[in-house]
């Protein structure tokens, strides 16, 4: 017969084993991608799959001349940061006034913003494609920046709104009493107080933009293609490119994975529109 303490410990061990098994299973494809990126193409295609091999950094060292990686990476960076900056610029004032100057229509507006996310991208694919073509913006970074800003705007407004809601109103009242204008009230008081929340909003927006793969695949070809499109271009050739593909994929995903790990707790609030904190 086990004592209570022993059975608790046994329980903990069993739970631990189960949890680790599930975690390793779910993580396996990422681990395998990383491992494959360190193989030669021949090892990568070997049957049965090789777990033990001589690792090589060759795939990473030649990444630029084999795939022009940095051009795509630079496109991803400019598009993501551009759309995030633009989005913050528009979302902060909106969230500010909805959080501190609430009217009867505020809730309705927030829900309406959320409902624009329900518009499936295919519903507007044709006109956006034709408009972009008309204005010579097909395969340009600016069109993706504008689209990403618009598709992420509702999430950003919601997320910032929930952070602003947590700011005590008294502090803003005090600043107002001291004669601060709305602009000063925002830049000198509100933004410094909520910089943690704003930072996680920025991170979430960067993650969403970086990984977006509907508009980038449909609207870009050579000039403005970000990493999502570069990787999709590997879908046709079979075999012999797996190590290269894995190296490119690992590099493309690493920054976002790290962002995600750092900000997992705060992301929950944004991704759940403030319903889960």
């Amino acid at each position, binding site marked *: 017969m086990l004592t209570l303490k022993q059975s608790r410990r046994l329980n903990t061990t069993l739970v631990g084993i189960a949890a680790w098994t599930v975690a390793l299973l779910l993580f396996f494809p990422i681990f395998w991608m990383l491992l494959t990126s360190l193989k030669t193409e021949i090892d990568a295609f070997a049957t049965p799959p090789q777990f033990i091999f001589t690792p090589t950094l060759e795939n990473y060292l030649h990444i630029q001349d084999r795939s022009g990686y940095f051009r795509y990476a630079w496109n991803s960076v400019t598009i993501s940061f551009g759309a995030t900056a633009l989005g913050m610029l528009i979302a902060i004032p909106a969230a500010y006034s909805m959080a501190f100057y609430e009217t009867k229509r505020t809730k309705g507006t927030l829900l309406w913003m959320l409902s624009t996310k329900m518009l*499936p991208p295919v519903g507007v694919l044709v006109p956006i494609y034709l408009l972009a073509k008309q204005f010579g913006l097909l395969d340009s970074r600016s069109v993706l920046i504008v689209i990403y800003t*618009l598709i992420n705007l509702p999430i950003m407004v919601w997320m910032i709104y929930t952070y602003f809601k947590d700011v005590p109103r008294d502090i803003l009242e005090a600043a107002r009493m001291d004669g601060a204008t709305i602009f000063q009230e925002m830049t000198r008081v509100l933004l410094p107080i909520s910089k943690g929340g704003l930072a996680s909003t920025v991170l979430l927006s960067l993650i969403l933009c970086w990984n977006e793969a509907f508009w980038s695949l449909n609207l870009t070809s050579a000039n403005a293609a970000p990493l999502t499109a570069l990787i999709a271009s590997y879908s046709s050739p079979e075999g012999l490119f797996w190590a290269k593909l894995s190296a490119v994929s690992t590099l493309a995903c690493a920054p976002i994975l790290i962002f995600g790990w750092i900000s*997992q707790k705060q992301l929950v609030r944004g991704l759940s529109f403030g319903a889960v904190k």
Partner: protein
Amino acid sequence: MTSTTTLDTERAGAPQDRPASRRRVKPGWFLVSPSVALLLLWMIVPLGMTVYFSVIRYNLLYPGENDFVGLENFEYFLTDAGFMPGMLNTLILVGSVLLISVVLGVLISALLEAADFAGRGITRVLLISPFFIMPTVSALVWKNLIYHPVSGILAAVWRFFGAQPVDWLAQHPLLSIVIIVSWQWLPFAILILMTAMQSLDQEQKEAARLDGAGPIAIFWHLTLPHLARPIAVVVMIETIFLLSVFAEIFTTTSGGPGYASTNLAYLIYNQALLQFDVGMASAGGLIAVVIANIAAIILVRMLGKNLTEKY
């Protein structure tokens, strides 16, 4: 001078809530309007164009032929060989990924909360990682490194047990895509549900335990009701994204073989950018919008109150 007068009125109005908030409406609307205007434009202009294109004959291969054709495009789209499979595949994809991610999400996050085992923080990080991988990468990693009938991991596992390796994407295309998409969205459910579980009152749990409730009773009567709202959130957000799954199909099966893994989003893309039939693609786009809106109305009815009631 003006500033002191506004301050005075402000202070005078402060005790009563309503007049104060009514006076603050002005800067409010001024600041919200850029967001509202942009989102309105984003919805109305392209949607209006889609409506217009859907009632004319418009194929990029035959320019200049833009006659009004009424509902012909809708008729063609609805009777297209790809429509029924596309519709069915969309429903299967959304439904099964939702089911998998909610059920497994609840179980896995309950498992992680069950005991304080060694390395819990690391397992948490490992579990949520797939969510941050870009869709084209997950699709290609699964296609080449996992599903491949010769060198894939699953082929090796099958051979290990003496079975004939399966060509997943050719033989079970929709199931394969469901697995890839679930792999991406299960971590999202885990992320949300785990966070929600941590906010569950530990004292309440302890009290239930002292009253003699077993772990299953606690899970059923305490944890699950607490999770109603986060589960609703997971269902809503995932439905939004799952209705328009595209990159995973684009990079793996291209909707095939036949229409076996074509969903509505892919069908419309195919119509518009591969066959250049703008009219029919627009009709299809509108049908997708209607379907998404039906889902949205149901979901917002269900959850709308849930989301805003806290504020």
